[in-house]
């Protein structure tokens, strides 16, 4: 009887130790950035599609147009914006739009991942049919939840021809955790620390 009690006590102790060790090894996955605890962004790709119309000269209407985009991004096209393709030919008609956002760079194409700098926070893929550039530039606002206000981030544009990420500009995260930048190229934009 004494032996059974000893064995049960040892088993109980082992179970308590295991539970304790297990609890020490798990966390909530949040990151500590500049002393602030910020929840990480979802790693899935958010996609939103829509259409915009341009006239026979390749211009959008006289009023600004909000492009359908995932909740993390806002894309505003100002009135009378000219859309052009790769060879600077104007693009007319109903143009399909597809805006993709993700903080998981492994969801990028292999080619785009090949030379991507390690400090990528998120990317925004702006696709508007055959239109590849806009004049004037689009106003793009992105919610970069993992970066604290005041952080300077670098925006890089992915060049399909060379496979390189070309540094375009830097921007500072606002107090609302968002960045706003002008985008002339309607292509893949990476946001880097």
């Amino acid at each position, binding site marked *: 009887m004494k032996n059974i009690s000893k064995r049960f006590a040892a088993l109980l102790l082992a179970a308590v130790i295991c539970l304790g060790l297990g609890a020490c090894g798990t966390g909530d996955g949040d990151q500590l950035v500049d002393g602030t605890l910020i929840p990480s962004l979802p790693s899935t790709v958010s996609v939103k599609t829509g259409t915009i*119309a341009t006239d*026979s*000269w390749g211009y959008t209407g006289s009023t600004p147009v909000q492009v359908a985009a995932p909740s993390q991004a806002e894309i505003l096209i100002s009135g009378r914006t*000219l859309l052009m393709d790769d060879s*600077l*030919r104007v693009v007319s008609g109903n143009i399909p739009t597809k805006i993709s956002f993700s903080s998981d760079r492994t969801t990028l194409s292999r080619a785009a991942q090949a030379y991507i700098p390690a400090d990528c926070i998120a990317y925004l893929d702006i696709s508007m049919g055959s239109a590849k550039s806009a004049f004037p530039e689009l106003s793009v606002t992105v919610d970069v939840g993992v970066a604290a206000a005041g952080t300077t981030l670098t925006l890089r544009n992915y060049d399909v021809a060379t496979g390189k990420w070309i540094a375009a500009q830097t921007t500072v995260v606002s107090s609302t955790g968002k960045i706003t930048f002008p985008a002339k190229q309607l292509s893949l934009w990476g946001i880097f620390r």
Partner: protein
Amino acid sequence: MKVRRSLVAISALIGIAAIPAVSLASPPRPAGYLSLFLGASAPQDTTVTISEFNPVATKDARAQFDPGINIGGTAGYDFGFFRLEGEMSYKRGEISKVTEQTYGTRYLNTDGHLGAFAMMMNGFFDLHNESPVTPYLGGGMGFSTIGLSRTRGVDASTGARNDHIFQSDYDNVFAYQAGAGLDIALNRHLSLDLGYRYFGTSRASFTKDWPNSTDLKLASHNAAVGLRVKF
């Protein structure tokens, strides 16, 4: 003495040469006639209104032209001091520049043209005199088919290439003209016609891409050299 003879001879030659002309400066002779002419047409700058519905947009573009051909013929009857004729002609101008203030576009070195095939009824007053040169003035009205070609260009501001500044289309419109000229008699039946015409049309509306439309009026200065055969 030799000098005097030469002067007389030259005077005689000039006099002989002048006989047919003087005789052709003759009193008006009622008869039918045919003519052909060839020259140049210089369309005036015009405002082209482009209305589109998706997206809603209206542009008032200014089109400028380089001169083009002016060719045609007439058939009519000369009553003496008044001629009544039917005319068929084709004139066109090459679109050289298209600008739009609101959009800030400046398409330079554009490739396109605006043409007018006109069927007119004209009346001219001939101011006969003692010389072989008969001034005339008058005008006419009728119908014209205005043809706008597909127009391409590069925007000097943005470098954008536009292959459809204007779409190809045509419209039938009312046309009028007024002009004057000189009819120079070469012999009893044949005369040389140096003429100027101001040619204008009512507003043409190109609606191939209905409900979108492109509207313009054509007005042009036209000069021509023609030959008229009187029967």
